[in-house]
């Protein structure tokens, strides 16, 4: 079957997490900015305690969707439910959500403690209760020594912890993260990523997390929703998205370095083959079942890490000789550029391999590692 954005609602219901009562349910959501349709008829269910990542390049509508869930944008149509309650037109503070922003958005003139307690004080929560919640959040996030400091005296990582703390003290079931790590440097980002994962394991809240970083998405998510042009392209567990991308966009988006694509024809018969230029790739053992139905023009995708070299390649059903054009050593891996059927492709090799530009090597791969996409619709075959 073809996984397209049209029948995603079915897929969402198939997924086990959503069989229980969903924590956040979005029904037929539309959002227009003037005449620009940013989100169109979007459906999404997020299970209780699930970590859902909205992933996509900038302008795909992922932050817009998050802002709709938070109530910071008025929707043009459709309904939003949080914990079974229709909150489509509720104020953000009444929705039972906490939110963490990219720029931290701390109140700069208040101490950390003030930042954590300002919203609670305003909601007229008793003093002892506020103190208890602030102490708990500070303990979980290990920011106790910072409570009396102002945000300007904190590092980026500490500021983001405080921002997470501000969501934590609200004592809500749903956490929304809007690219929380994008303003941090690489090392801090990795540290805080682990921190957020630990937090999720510890609290068991529903978390919806917007990012453009696929590493964050793959490592954190229970499920990833890949968005493009205001539509969810694929909603599935990270492994599923990596192994069975529903279309060429998703296939090229996930994975770093990204997937290699060859343009050609599928020829069915006694043995199914993919023809591209003078290269013929046998498709016996292709992992998906749509082959028989759509012979014709197609894209063949193969990830750089799934292209074998040396003895392994010689044992593979498809192999050929290739001349190395460029070698990019990256320490743990070596990225090699070469040509296959007239297309420039990347191969990920062991970091210790001592290949050089101009060398001829044997490359090959198994058909079960290959993805085929219809050339016209770009959907998986």
């Amino acid at each position, binding site marked *: 079957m073809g996984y397209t954005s049209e029948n995603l609602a079915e897929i969402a219901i198939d997924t086990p997490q959503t069989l229980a009562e969903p924590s956040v349910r979005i029904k037929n959501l539309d959002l227009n900015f003037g005449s620009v349709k940013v989100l169109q008829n979007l459906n999404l269910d997020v299970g209780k305690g699930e970590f859902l990542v909205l992933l996509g390049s900038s302008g795909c509508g992922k932050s817009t969707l998050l*802002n709709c869930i*938070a*109530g*910071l944008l008025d929707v043009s149509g459709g309904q939003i439910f949080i914990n079974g309650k229709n909150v489509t037109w509720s*104020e*953000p*503070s*009444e929705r039972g*959500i*906490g*939110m963490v*922003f*990219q*720029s*931290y*958005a*701390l*109140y*700069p*003139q208040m101490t950390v403690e003030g930042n954590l307690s*300002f*919203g609670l004080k*305003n*909601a007229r929560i008793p003093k002892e209760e506020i103190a208890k919640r602030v102490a708990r959040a500070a303990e979980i996030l290990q920011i106790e020594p910072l409570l009396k400091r102002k945000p*300007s005296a904190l590092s980026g990582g500490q500021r983001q912890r405080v*921002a997470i703390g*501000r969501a934590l003290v*609200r004592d809500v079931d749903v956490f929304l993260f*809007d690219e929380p790590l994008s303003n941090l440097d690489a090392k801090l980002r990795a540290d805080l990523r682990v921190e957020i994962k630990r937090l999720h394991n510890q609290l068991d809240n529903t978390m919806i997390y917007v990012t453009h970083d696929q590493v964050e998405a793959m490592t954190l998510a229970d499920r990833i929703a890949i968005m493009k042009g205001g539509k969810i392209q694929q909603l599935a567990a990270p492994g599923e998205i990596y192994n069975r991308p529903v279309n060429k966009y998703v296939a090229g988006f996930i994975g770093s370095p990204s997937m290699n694509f060859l343009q050609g024809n599928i020829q069915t018969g006694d043995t199914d083959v993919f023809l591209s230029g003078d290269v013929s790739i046998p498709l016996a053992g292709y992992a998906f079942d749509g082959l028989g139905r759509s012979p014709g023009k197609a894209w063949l995708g193969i990830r750089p890490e799934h292209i074998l070299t040396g003895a392994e390649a010689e044992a593979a059903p498809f192999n050929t000789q290739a001349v190395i054009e460029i070698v990019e050593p990256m320490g743990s891996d070596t990225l090699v550029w070469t040509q296959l059927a007239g297309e420039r492709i990347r191969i990920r090799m062991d970091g210790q391999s001592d290949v050089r530009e101009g060398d001829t090597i044997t490359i090959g791969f198994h058909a079960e590692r290959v993805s085929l996409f219809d050339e016209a619709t770009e959907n998986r075959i």
Partner: protein
Amino acid sequence: MAIAEIQGQSTEDVRPPVRLFRNLNAKIASIPMIMTAVFVFIGCTVWTIVHSFTKSRLLPKLDFVGLDQYERLWGTRRWLVSIENLAIYGICSLVLSLVIGFTLAALLDRKIRFENTFRTILLYPFALSFIVTGLVWQWILNPDFGIQSVVRGWGWESFTFDPLYNPDIVIFGILIAGIWQGSGFIMVVMLAGLRGIDEEIWKAARVDGIPTWKTYIFVVIPMMRPVFVTALVLITSGIVKVYDLVVAQTSGGPGIASEVPAKYVYDKMFQAQNLGQGFAASTMMLLSVVIILIPWAYLEFGGKKRG
């Protein structure tokens, strides 16, 4: 070594260049401004202060009389009225300009339609000179042609609104014109400050459930401190030098009810041929500015260093 020689560098150890000649162009270019500052600002100020202790009349003369000019100044009713008027005008104008300017800016910042139109309308008075503003408001407040006569024309015969002809409230008539002209500019300064506030701060406050007015007071205004300082300096300098507005609206009248210090200085120096008295008055004005300025400058720039 050959390359170094081609580039005109010596391969031997060199001494650092003379400090005085570094950035020479910039130093030469700033000479006129340095001269102006030294001779006009500092020089003339000192000269004025020195001559305020003399009995100069039509021409400056170094004929010292000690504090006589100051004793006379503080014994003059006109000066006392001027100081009182300046205090009332100053406090009201400062508070109202800030409040009105910020409120207008906050209203414009709520993503309204026709923002540019409103901004232009509100800023327009600032493009007028004080003389024009003064004359316009003199007409508007004139009992025979302005608001009072219009309201009486509607049938409310006993209506009285003649601030410029009532010595008790004449300064407020001038205040109206001053606010009308100045608050648009303060609004623009405030609007620029509001635009500098991160959108996500507003979002965070909404998620926290903070009402808009509370967000302004407890979060946004504290963040806009530098903008308020700028606005404060602009308003204060406008207050101390207020002169043309008074001349155009009332010429200090009725009687001496709307006199201000700057007008006192001008009249003594150029109308009454009493330079010594004018110098003494302007020295008092300088003194009052310094008294306000120094503690503020110390708080703002001295004390602790900001990161």
